[in-house]
């Protein structure tokens, strides 16, 4: 069965007709040629396919494209219009928070989503109590980023990059 949908992808309106079984991940990669969402497991277990869907981090391999009709998708590519890296992306480069780079666009989108969640006061598994919003300690960052696996083991530098971006936000 086919369906026609419209997505706003990295700021651009895209219309497409696709098999209703198509995931948002395959719609991006195979139909629209957007490679910044990566397929690492196709089962919601690795986070490589993470994008910001209407501002929230989502694993696109677990989302059917038809269910996303009318939404707005931001990928790591869209965070760098004209190739100018977003401050968090720049921090990834400086802290060398990647090796093979396959998990990286997902890490970036996940980190941005995570920062918004923290700002909105969402607790994590390691948050002490629910009375006050959590301070983003390294432990909090690690916990909140643990849905994004990195087999190259870039975690130490991923945390450092997120730290750097947080610090840069704080100093205008």
């Amino acid at each position: 069965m086919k369906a026609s949908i419209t997505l706003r992808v990295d700021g651009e309106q895209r219309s497409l007709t696709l098999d209703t079984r198509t995931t948002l991940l395959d719609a991006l990669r195979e139909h629209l040629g957007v490679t910044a969402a990566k397929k690492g497991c196709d089962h919601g277990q690795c986070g490589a396919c993470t994008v910001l869907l209407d501002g929230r981090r989502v694993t696109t391999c677990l989302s059917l494209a038809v269910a996303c009709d009318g939404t707005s998708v931001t990928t790591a590519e869209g965070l760098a219009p004209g190739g100018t890296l977003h401050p968090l992306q720049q921090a990834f480069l400086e802290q060398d928070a990647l090796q093979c780079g396959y998990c990286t666009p997902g890490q970036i989108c996940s980190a941005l989503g995570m920062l918004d969640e923290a700002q909105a006061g969402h607790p994590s598994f390691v948050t002490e109590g629910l009375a006050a919003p959590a301070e983003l300690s390294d432990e909090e960052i690690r916990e909140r980023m643990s849905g994004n696996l990195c087999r190259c083991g870039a975690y130490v530098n991923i945390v450092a990059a997120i730290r750097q971006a947080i610090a840069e936000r704080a100093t205008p």
Partner: protein
Amino acid sequence: MQMIEPRAMGTPLQRIDGAAKIMGTAPYAFEHRLERPTYLHPVQSTIARGRILKIDTRAAESLEGVIAVITHETAARLASDENKELWVLQSAKVHFRGQFIAAVIAQTPESARAGADRIAVEYEAARHDVSFSGGRKDLYAPKTVNAGYPTDTNQGDAETAFERAEVKVDSTYTTPMEHNSPMEPHTTIAIWESPKLTLYDSTQSVHSVRTTVAKSLGLKVDQVRVVSPYVGGGFGSKGEPHAHNILAALAALRVPGRPVKFALTRQQMFCLAGYRTPTIQRFRLGATRDGRLTSIIHDVVELTSRFKEFAEQTAVPTRLMYASPNRRTRHRLAALDLPKPSWMRAPGETPGMFAGEVAMDELAVACGLDPVELRVRNEPERNPESDNPWGNRHLLECLREGARRFAWSERDPRPRQRSDRGWLIGSGVASSTYPRYVLLGSRATIRCGERGQYTVRIGAADLGTGTWTTLTQIAADALQCPVEAVHLEIGDTEQPNATVAGGSSGISSWGWAIVAAAQELRRLHGARPAAGAEASAQTPKGADDETFAQHSFGAQFAEVRVNTLTGEVRLSRMLGVFSAGRIINPRLARSQLIGGMTMGLSMALHEESVVDERFGHVINHDFAGYHIAANADVTDMDAVWLDEVDDRSTPMGSRGIGEIGIVGAAAAIANAVYHATGTRIRNLPITPDKLVT
């Protein structure tokens, strides 16, 4: 050796390919944009041994979107069965559960998968045997083990010396089956445009994929092109082509002119992309009361597939780590109805040094000696096996530097002495080693452009290893020009031959070829070559290769916290100190070494592929079941290195760092768990159930 002068080398240049990867625009294999692609989905055997009696493909063929189905009855015939792993769709025989037995080519990924679901197969199943144990009667000695090492070695009379030793350790250690699990699955796009086959592949060696695939298909080497500019990790599993390369090529022959896109699913990665054999290792150490080794005996049992042999060289590091007048090492294999094991980061050293370095810790306890001091007392002056002098052995410096930085001297040697709110705290140490390999067969070409620019070409691979960046730095120093003047081209068989990114040999082998080509350029065209001047050279053989024992060394220090109620182990601190020759790029090197240590942590605490003996497959075949270290597992971890230039190894002074970071890491953690709890865990991974009794 004539060394090149370091200007770019040693500087923390940012990853040249970093921005493209961070934006997600660097094309990995599956991401090359090609017109009118087709998609391939395989059918896998559901028995582990036997034969196919009948395959009914009609329901699949009639499905909308399906272009063709290939089976062992309809696929093109291959030319060579020399490598049985690559003898794909050529016979009705089934060697392991999960083997490719058919494949569907379709217009979309959805219809390819739906088609594969509709293929009905009848088998004649034979009794399979996948049960791995050290007590099997049919264990055998392979002719050699991986990388060409002898299967067994014997010096002196190790058994008698062990019997007579004042202090003895006699323990058996096990490591489970482990899967490389790079984040980018094994992926190929194959296009047959007669008479040429092109593969966009995720590989650690474009040239060996080309040679192997050409041979398998009966093509001439120059009929095949392999392209692989970016690789999403491999850790050995992409070091050689696997069955999926051949399946994609067979499918491409069926739909000439159209690209066939094929990515293994994560589940398929657990039976079609190699793995590390489980090991059972009996380690015996005999020593004098003051901790001088008199005997070392290392007996290894591991597995191979029945249809093709792979023998991991697990006991090889035992042959060189410590001095002892008597030493015996041995490898024995169980041949089972399983997929073929293969390379996984530091094959041999990784499991072997787990056993050996925990055994040393047990000996330190038995002798009442500090584990660092025990290693100092057993430092061999020359390579114990070859009697060659060491090229650059700095194990003790690594141990001492690590001990200083880790505040080791403050440690109470008695186990189970420190605790904090329900967590026992302990620390452990282990040595690390990895051979320096330079492979022969790479060639680099350098061409002068306008305004002092150079194009450097070699079919090397960057699987996260930093090749794009570090080869550029090496080329700049070899050509005595700024890095901006170097335009590097890698990852394509159109470039000169490059050996595999494996054995931590990549940068050493390719870098040396570039240095040789730069020298050749100067010899032919003088110090200021004109635009258009070109030169090419191969990696030469090192003058000291036969006469010196060349190895990297390291020391791993770990601190863990073990929950007294749940048995959960958390790594709280880890430091690696390495001696690996000159570090070409400190920013990238630190990442890679920490990456190795992180994989070692993962091995220590999480990773275990569980084979279901009834069906013959890995039952936890995804990231929900096969746990690898996540961000929350890694806390305070760092890697440092000795300031060193190895003028026997390469003209860059480097030795390679891809693997040494993982070696010894699991042992350091296991030793820390013992120190924290007083319980010696000899079977990886160290899961809570093993600590809660």
